[in-house]
């Protein structure tokens, strides 16, 4: 239970920072001061400044407004799509099931994020492409998870009762099946958000994600890379921020999993 609390606390802090970034950040994310480049921590710049003299702390805060929403949207769309398809595949027999599951097998024949990378090549760089590419690929995992659950729940007595009572599928599926199969996809969503934050910052680092000079954590690491020799600490704040966000969401996921297991 403490795991869940700590996790929710960490995530809440990130969300608050993202929402109130303009109020919390001491400087604008892109306001440069070329006379004060690559400075170490000081009272005026708690985490120092980067190569363009921008305040690192402010960029971290504004970065939360890019990484979190993009990751959450990129997870929500395939989660929704996959859950619906999984429900249908589990409920309706042969044809729907094999159509959905064969497509899923096909998608799984690709290494997921290499396919996302290839799709980004086709759609052009940017957050929008990453969201679309993830939606095309990631629904598979949710569909498989939900289908497996539906197959189990389907045989229970209360579903038989609902059917015997003459309820149509459009009522049984959302009212009686859905609430009982949500645990698995919900838990997985949390690790998926972690994966997406990592993927988004990785793609930005590779130069095919969010374009610079947007304040995004991966972009910040990429911008610090040329100065590894002289200012090795510059990669610390954005990297540790990503790790902390990841730990927060992982703990929420673990906490939820523990709770559902009981």
């Amino acid at each position, binding site marked *: 239970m403490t795991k869940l609390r700590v996790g929710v606390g960490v995530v809440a802090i990130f969300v608050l920072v993202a929402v109130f970034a303009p109020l919390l950040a001491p400087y604008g994310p892109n306001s440069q001061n070329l006379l004060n480049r690559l400075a170490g921590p000081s009272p005026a710049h708690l985490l120092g400044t980067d190569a363009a003299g921008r305040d690192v702390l402010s960029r971290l805060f504004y970065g939360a407004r890019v990484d979190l929403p993009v990751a959450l949207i990129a997870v929500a769309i395939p989660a929704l799509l996959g859950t619906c398809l999984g429900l249908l595949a589990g409920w309706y027999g042969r044809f729907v099931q094999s159509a959905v599951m064969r497509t899923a097998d096909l998608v799984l024949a*690709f290494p997921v994020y*290499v396919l996302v*990378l290839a799709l980004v090549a086709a759609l052009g760089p940017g957050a929008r492409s990453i969201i679309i590419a993830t939606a095309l690929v990631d629904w598979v995992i949710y569909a498989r998870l939900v289908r497996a659950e539906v197959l189990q729940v389907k045989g229970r007595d209360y579903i038989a009762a609902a059917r015997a009572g003459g309820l149509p599928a459009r009522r049984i599926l959302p009212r009686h099946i859905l609430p009982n199969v949500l645990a698995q996809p919900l838990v997985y969503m949390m690790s998926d958000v972690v994966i997406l934050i990592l993927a988004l910052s990785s793609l930005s680092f590779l130069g095919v994600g969010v374009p610079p000079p947007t304040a995004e954590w991966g972009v910040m690491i990429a911008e610090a890379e040329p100065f590894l*020799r002289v200012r090795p600490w510059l990669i610390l704040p954005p*990297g540790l921020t990503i790790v902390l966000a990841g730990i927060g969401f992982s703990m929420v996921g673990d906490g939820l999993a523990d709770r559902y297991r009981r």
Partner: protein
Amino acid sequence: MHRFGFLVRRALQIVPLLAVVLFVVAALVRVVPGDPARALLGLGATPARAARLDQELGVDKPLLSGYVDYASHAIQGNLGNSVKAQEPVTTLIGERVGVTAWLLFFALLFALLLALPLAILSARRRDRPLDHGIRGVSVLALSIPTFWLGLMLVSYVALPTGWFPVAGFGEGLAQHLHSIVLPALALALAIAPIQIRALRVALIRALNSDFVAAARAMGLNERRVLLRHALPNAMVSSLTLLAAQLGALLFGEVVVESAFALPGLGQAMVQAVSERDYAVVQGITLLAALLVILVNLAVDVLYALLDPRVQVR
């Protein structure tokens, strides 16, 4: 005989899968908004040049015949030409696949060397502080961006000590080995946490099973029980994990190659993506998918050979 039938049927399953994978790869250029040739060549392209490239990428034809062309060429070992590098994609892949193979091999080796002892420790000290510690660190490690870990190794290990090259692959075997250590370590640390977790669970299950109880009852010491009886069993059941992790491994490969400037397929992929060199993107994607399909097949076959309970499906 049943077993043989299963193997043949399982092997034949990859034929339709390959056909559809080829279709997806061929269709990749079709998702490009507007005209791929224009996107690649830029606004300065002459109409003749753009038309030739469209023809080469097969987008001047209907989807289906474009696919048939791409697939039949691919089967004959022709993946088109890289526009930027001015050479066949297969040549480009051939030049770079070695680096990628080195990195994959050593990353897997390091990950195994890391995961095996930690999982054993964790399973034997189940629910004790050491177990909690190892599990906590694995959760933490899962949140570390691999490219950042690579850069951390560069700035806090390679640069201060001067023991390792910071970038590139060097010349000759000794330099190759030398320059692969840190990238492989970064990649290994990215995949080890999941291996530790899965191996730990499999070990605990094996240690609680009847055959281990029987081995103990025969008076074998705990060390022998663990290494000779529980561990092989746990490793077989976590074999499928390798296949499941391959996607993450390959993406990590791309990222690590870029962070350490290793001239492998991952770096070529990133370069091709940012330059919109579609034929290269298609070729490398196809190769990666092929690897996933073959590894899955190999794992299934191995599984069937190692575990006699696997029945004909």
